[in-house]
């Protein structure tokens, strides 16, 4: 029998045992739906985090004093400056001599020296403690990657001005802070010249002003130095070069290295790895329900073979070969898998659209979701394969039935 005819008969078999077929299909729908939903939520989270971190700029390095700590606690601007403006150790600091070393490295395009800390900010009678970043206003504009929502970035002539994060401008205080409004930081008045298009509550000001504002800062010492490299592809080589030169100037060996160079790329990669292993773990759990669905298909197929024994006998009597019967039952199982797969993908899309709304506030909810073509193709192939594998043994059993026995079956 031609394959297209076998397919027709298989489809008829699915359609003619409606309830049982649909119940079996439901098992696959749930399995595939769960897998697709989790995969797309994972992808969505991954992408949204990548977007956030992607803003950091893959061509940038962060130099901090002190031996390597957890990477995630590093980062420029809004991630920096957890507690106090000093470097992590009393002895170990970054200062002008380090800056000079960096200036001597040709692969570096921009160097932004930073200090950061928290300070009391008041606006129209409201007060809050805000993360303050002192930046080198001459280069900051080149390496900061957020868009400007309104106003402008800092320039070299600025002194008592600040650029503020989007959330500080709108949402932190009761009254939104607009361009040219004055805010008070540790008793000094600053004019807001720009608002960033981001969700941070940070304040950026010229580093010279930050030295005055942040209590325990020491002039010409930096909490971090952000470096933008000339060639992003060569970033690892540049890191090595920087480390080598700094070790020489700071008179430390590789083992006792008292500073850390972190690439934003590494931070991004670590985050993505963490995320993808988490979503893989969840997908594996969802896959268990797909496995249960497969058992359901096998069960249905065995029942179907038993129920259709006489029909198999008739077909064999009128010329069906073993192969014809085998293909017909395999296609039946594959169809159950495929229909389950298609509906499962739709369910998965629905779920992955709903979950961010239902779980808003949790990391899963924040990420949104993204159903990729890959996950759809994967889900459909897997569900078809599941159908075929689950249907294999019943189909072989059906094809091997002896016509004389099958015909006698009532």
């Amino acid at each position, binding site marked *: 029998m031609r394959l297209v005819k076998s397919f027709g008969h298989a489809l008829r078999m699915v359609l003619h045992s409606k309830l049982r077929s649909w119940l079996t299909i439901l098992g696959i729908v749930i399995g595939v739906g769960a897998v697709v939903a989790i995969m797309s939520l994972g992808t969505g989270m991954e992408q949204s985090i990548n977007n956030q971190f992607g803003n950091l700029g893959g061509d940038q390095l962060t130099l901090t004093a002190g031996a390597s700590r957890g990477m995630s606690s590093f980062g420029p601007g809004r991630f920096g400056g957890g507690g106090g403006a000093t470097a992590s150790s009393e002895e170990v600091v970054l200062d002008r001599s380090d800056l000079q070393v960096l200036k001597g490295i040709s692969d570096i395009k921009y160097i932004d020296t930073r200090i950061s800390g928290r300070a009391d900010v008041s606006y129209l009678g409201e007060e809050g403690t805000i993360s303050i970043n002192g930046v080198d206003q001459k280069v900051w504009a080149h390496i900061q990657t957020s868009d400007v929502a309104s106003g402008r970035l800092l320039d070299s002539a600025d002194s008592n001005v600040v650029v503020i994060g989007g959330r500080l401008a709108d949402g932190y205080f009761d009254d939104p802070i607009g361009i040219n409004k004055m805010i008070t930081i540790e008793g000094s008045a600053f004019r807001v010249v720009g608002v960033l298009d981001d969700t941070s509550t940070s304040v950026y000001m010229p580093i010279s002003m930050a030295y005055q504002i942040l209590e325990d800062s020491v002039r010409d010492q930096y909490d971090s130095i952000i470096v933008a490299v000339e060639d992003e592809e060569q970033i690892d080589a540049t890191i090595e070069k920087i480390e080598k030169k700094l070790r020489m100037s700071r008179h430390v060996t590789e083992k006792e290295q008292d500073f850390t160079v972190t690439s934003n790329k590494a931070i991004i990669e670590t985050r993505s790895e963490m995320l993808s292993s988490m979503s893989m773990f969840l997908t594996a759990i969802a896959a268990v329900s797909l496995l249960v669905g497969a058992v359901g298909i096998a069960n249905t197929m065995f029942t179907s073979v038993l129920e259709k024994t*006489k029909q198999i006998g008739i077909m064999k009597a009128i010329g069906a070969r073993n*192969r014809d019967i085998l293909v017909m039952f395999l296609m039946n199982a594959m169809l159950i898998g495929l229909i389950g797969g298609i509906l499962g993908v739709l369910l998965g899309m629905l779920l992955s659209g709903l979950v961010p709304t239902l779980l808003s506030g949790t990391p899963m909810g924040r990420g949104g979701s993204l159903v990729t073509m890959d996950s759809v193709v994967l889900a459909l192939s897997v569900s078809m394969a599941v159908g075929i594998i689950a249907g294999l043994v019943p189909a072989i059993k059906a094809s091997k039935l002896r016509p004389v026995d099958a015909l006698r079956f009532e």
Partner: protein
Amino acid sequence: MIQVNLMIMEKKGKALVSMKDVWKVYQMGEVEVPALRGVSVDIHEGEFVAIIGQSGSGKSTMMNMVGCLDVPSKGTVLLKGKDITKLSESNLSVLRGRSIGFIFQQYNLIPNMSAYENVLLPLELAEVDDASASQRVLDVLDDVGLGDKVENRPAQLSGGQQQRVSIARCLVTDPEIILADEPTGALDSKTGKDVIQTLQRLWKEKGKTVIMVTHDLTLAQYAQRHIELRDGIIVNDYQNKAIKQVKKGEYS
């Protein structure tokens, strides 16, 4: 008797089905039950044979052998010169599909297919192209008088109509041998006569070899040759001198 058989062979030409010392033994738990015990018989092209006997005489087993539905425990069955015991199951299926048409007592139609689809099935299995298959099915259904019932499912047809669909299914591949297992067993006498008349017509007009299994001696009177089985052995094999004809008035 030998003389008579030789005469038939000369008249009828080569043997279509040839059974030589065929045994069939069924295993019933610990006990072996022989259904056929050394049956040897030749059935020739163009014969209308009735295999008769009480239930348990082995006639169904014999029909299964002739129809390639089963293989013997011992002995050989030659169908058109081919030893069916040496053929693979798939080759047996192909041989069955091409050479043998089955008419069963219980019609054995596939319930969720229309009359048309049931009759089409053997052609689909034989990979006949769609256009000629479709025309052939409609012709055959028309031939058995069901031209207006092609879309009906078996459940929507009477017993007689169902048996006619099964006859159409049997004829659609134009087989050389028609195997009918108690073809009127489930029908009332009028529709039963319809069926037997069809078989006679196929034998006489189309030159088909018809092999009919029945326990009904009246029905056997319509056949040309009687092979009588008892306890798995052929006890009688003779030409029916007075072949009964279905009169025009008896059916329609």
